[in-house]
């Protein structure tokens, strides 16, 4: 009887312990560069790796040397629309933000504020016309016009069979000359993931 009681007590303790562990929230800090794939969907690692690689490529191509050689100045670049044509609700803003950071930090190009940002700055400049002193006021019409626009698409192809899925991402970026619509660079990055969903759960 005592033996049975002991077994029941130990089992109960283990079960309760397990339940309590399962109920508590666990937080583990990670390095932002550490890759951790949970669902197989587009994540921060994809965004960072693609932007780094694509910008490295665009800055190493001939168009940059040709432009600086001919104009004797750095080109001004703007990031245009990156369309999400994928199967996922991807936060394109973080991807565009990653690309902007890479471009600015390269020091090889000048970077122009986006359409939305420009609107806000112009509003502020208008406000300065009325309220700022002559010395500190910034005049209208002094903006730098972009020489090139970087735009692109994120596409996916999914191949699903039962609980297995191949997720294929293709990111296409194009750098277009604002002066004559020439495409001076076309970059492409592909990511392929194999995702297996569990058949059973507890």
């Amino acid at each position, binding site marked *: 009887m005592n033996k049975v009681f002991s077994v029941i007590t130990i089992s109960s303790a283990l079960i309760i312990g397990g339940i309590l562990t399962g109920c508590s929230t666990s937080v583990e800090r990670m390095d932002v560069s550490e890759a951790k794939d949970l669902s197989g969907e587009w994540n921060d690692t994809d965004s960072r790796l693609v932007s780094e690689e694509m910008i490295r490529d665009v800055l190493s191509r001939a168009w940059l040397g040709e432009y600086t050689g001919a104009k004797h100045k750095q080109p001004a670049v703007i990031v245009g629309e990156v*369309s*999400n*044509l994928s*199967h*996922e*609700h991807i936060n394109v803003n973080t991807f565009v933000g990653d690309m902007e950071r890479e471009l600015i930090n390269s020091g090889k190009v000048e970077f122009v504020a986006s359409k939305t940002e420009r609107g806000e700055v112009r509003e502020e400049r208008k406000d300065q016309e009325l309220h700022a002193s002559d010395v500190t006021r910034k005049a209208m019409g002094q903006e730098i016009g972009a020489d090139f626009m970087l735009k692109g698409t994120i596409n996916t192809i999914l191949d699903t069979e039962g609980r297995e899925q191949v997720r294929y991402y293709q990111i296409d970026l194009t750098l277009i000359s604002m002066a004559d619509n020439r495409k001076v660079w076309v970059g492409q990055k592909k990511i392929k993931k194999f995702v297996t969903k569990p*058949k*059973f759960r*507890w």
Partner: protein
Amino acid sequence: MAVVRAIALGVAASLLLSGCAAVRFTEDPVEKLLLAQQPEQALSVLEQRQVSDRNRGLQLLDKGMLLRMQGQFESSNTTLEEAKGIAEQLDAISLREQAAASSINDIMRSYSPPPFELVMLHCVKILNYLELGKLDDARVEALQLDVLLKDKMPDKEVPFARYLAGLVFEARNEYDDALISYRKSYEAYKANGFTVPLALQLDLLRLTQYLKLTDENKKLQEEFSLTEWPTQKQVKEQGELILIIFNGLVPRKHETSLNVQDPMSGKLYRIAIPFYEEREPAAHGAQLAVGTTTANTELSDQLDRHAKAALDAEMPKIIARTIARVAVKSKTVDELGKNNALVGMVANIAGFVSEQADTRAWYTLPQQILIGRMRLAPGKQDLTVTLEGTSGEHTWHDIEIAAGKKRFVSWHWPASRSLIRRASQ
């Protein structure tokens, strides 16, 4: 011992006196409030309700729909996205829940939406995004919908879902993708035995002509017996207003049960399975009016039929599980009764009472989906919609119509009547 036996005999006697078969109708305050056109109060009641983890996904589905009825499209989509995540997790079979379902009842399993409800989850999200003017996000849902339909409903799709996806692609000027969706919608209407909406027929004729698919265009002309349709040029010169009405409420599942007592052993047995009631939406259609221009809505889908088809498909499994459960419970009662007759009797009553049909479903879905489409001159327009057979009327002011663009507006009219419950009363 004598007391328990007396209770058991009393329960058995009452069952036998009341007949072997019984029907139990389920009432829900949320449904009542919706039928009274009070979605705000319905949401309030729903949010106060404490639900177990296994019904969390279902509550989110209802909440997403009720938020959308109040025009909270962003919140609705956030809620439905959470419900989608739960549904994906529940796609895997739970060993623990299966064991509970085998020994207690089917309600012990987490609510996993049937494929047509998952399809509607994407459709509602698409409509929310369209109302928000987020075409890219609506397109993402349309692509997910395509994967889901291929995977879960390969033979008999939900035609409205493909129709809606086609409209999304066309709104983005992706005509080849739009045509593919319209074709699949047409096939789904035929597969389900539904009438193909005239507007879809005209879309198919227009796009096959525009994309120079001459043979297909001729074939469709013969199938539809139509020789005229608006050309792509005419369509691009005007804007299009598309009204989607969620009409009525999808029928409710109730429980029918068979209760018997073995005259030899005195053991009680119960088998309970769900069935769908018959419903009738209060509105039989709607008329759209913009100035002197009018148009009637078309019936684009009947979710009650998808719901019943889903239950019919599931019924063999439900019956198999129910019978297996009766056997398990009976065996348990026998084993327990060997050592102690009283314990066996208590177990028998517990097993009898716990036997319940799983009548859970996404009940805030509509019974029907109506679509009204009007080609209009660019500019700000006032739209008035009048429902046929009810006092329902609503006016939208200053809807911006742009040339070559589609503008989506949606409306819910949940009022409907349960025919079977009315008949039983």
